[in-house]
């Protein structure tokens, strides 16, 4: 990924193209990780349609929707940051990247607030569930899947935030140039995946009711 030509490559362009391919392969693998959870969700929704319906009505659709907007916007800003880097406008790129990070952090905070609300109701995953208004098995499974899917996604957001912060520092130190900024592109790709997964989670969790 670095801009030093490694011995096995002929050109830097080839090295960067390989790095991008590697990232795409990684993203394919990642999507299967979430795919397994989506498959479980589909199966349990098939077994417990009414309970899932009732439980989804209890999800906090306002926070979920705000979070959707936050992540979609952050995808735009990270794409713009890459664009500005390409056109040698480092200062703008730094601001855009900072906005991306801020949006991601806000997303995580709102997610935490949402978890807090649920836990206060006694909606905890699996055997710890104690919410009397929705006692059915299907509801427990719905919320367990909710915690697993959003939890795994939140971990990915956290990983993305670390990567973006590191990239911000690189950019600040002038290590990412218009000709050579493949690390930023990879970070952006990863961030788009995180966004894309949420685009699936949002309807599955908040809108199916």
């Amino acid at each position: 990924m670095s801009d030093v030509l490694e011995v096995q490559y002929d050109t830097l362009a080839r090295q960067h193209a390989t790095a991008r391919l590697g990232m795409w392969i990684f993203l394919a693998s990642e999507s299967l990780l979430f795919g397994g959870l989506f498959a479980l969700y589909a199966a349990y929704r098939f077994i417990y349609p009414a309970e899932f319906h009732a439980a989804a009505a209890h999800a906090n659709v306002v926070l979920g929707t705000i979070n959707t907007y936050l992540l979609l916007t952050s995808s735009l800003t990270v794409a713009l940051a890459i664009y500005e880097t390409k056109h040698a406008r480092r200062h703008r790129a730094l601001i855009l990247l900072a906005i991306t990070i801020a949006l991601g952090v806000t997303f995580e905070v709102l997610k935490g607030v949402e978890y807090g609300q649920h836990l206060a109701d006694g909606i905890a995953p699996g055997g710890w569930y104690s919410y009397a208004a929705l006692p059915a098995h299907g509801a427990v499974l719905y919320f367990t899947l909710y915690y697993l899917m959003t939890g795994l996604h939140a971990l990915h957001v956290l990983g993305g935030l670390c990567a973006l912060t590191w990239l911000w520092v690189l950019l600040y130190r002038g290590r990412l140039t218009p000709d050579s900024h493949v690390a930023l592109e990879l970070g952006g790709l990863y961030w788009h995946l995180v966004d894309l997964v949420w685009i699936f989670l949002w309807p599955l969790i908040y809108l199916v009711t």
Partner: protein
Amino acid sequence: MNALLHHLLNLPPQASSVARGIDTLHYSVILATFLGVAVVAAITVWFIVRFHRRTEVPECTPRVVSSLRLELGVGGGLLALFCAWWVIGFAQYRDLETPPANAIPIYVTAKQWMWKFAYPGGPTSSEVLVVPVGTPVKLIMTSRDVIHGFYVPAFRIKQDVVPGRAITTWFDVVEPGTYDILCTQYCGTRHSFMRAQVVALAPADFARWLDAARGPLPLPGAKGEGQGLAARGHAVAAEHGCLRCHSVDGSPFIGPTWADAFGRRRPLAGGGDVLVDEAYLTESMMDPNAKVAAGFKAVMPSYQGVISPAETAALLEYIRSLRDVEPTTQVPAPTGPISIPEGVRDGGV
């Protein structure tokens, strides 16, 4: 031919109606396997001998490439053979999965590490499944803890017994005798000890056995006054299949236990609680979904019009007689998406 191959392949007796047909397919697949291995080995050996290297440093060899037609021929021919096995195998599988309409139902409960069998009309037995010869028997199976595997090698049948599901398999024994039941799905420390037996009796013997088993029933745990009416209640419970879902020793099952239940307050699924008394019990028999106990699914059918007022009274007395029973240690809680076995509604038969 059958006897020879049966012996060579170390197969168990062909004791069910399907065993012979399955074994015939087995022979054809295994013989084809040996034939395939022999053909490949013979060609290989022939090539090794015929084209053995004769010089220290090899010389150039002619370029030989198979034609697409040859490859498609080999692939297509084998695929046709495999698909033929698939068609026959699947037809047999359908038979194995579809019990005949006239099959006698028997309820099977698996738990670590034992098998329990319940007959329509009441009698239950552990570790020994007594069946008639020449009549199809349908097993409606569920597990109370982990997945078990119900396997009778001599019948060529096997079915995983999954907690939270009622799964059916069937067989029709052709030869009186005793056959092993083995557990094939690994289920814990004593998995290999989880063995039972099928005892296949001639129809007349089976009828005699069933009559004897239905006779004077033991009264597990019942004490106190009203023995006479309570005993009748136990018979009613057995006859109507109540005991397939409600235990009388405190172990939780599909429904709440009857042990130490009468006179206590019970939490309800919808919140709140209720005193378990004659009124609540009667309501639960006639309109079971009105007040469902917490932790249980609303799966009980209504017995309105199925049991007579006298029988209801006997049942109430029986349940009351169990109020002093010390509940046994708690087994893991019962299972999830219960589908009620067919036949429970009308007590079987």
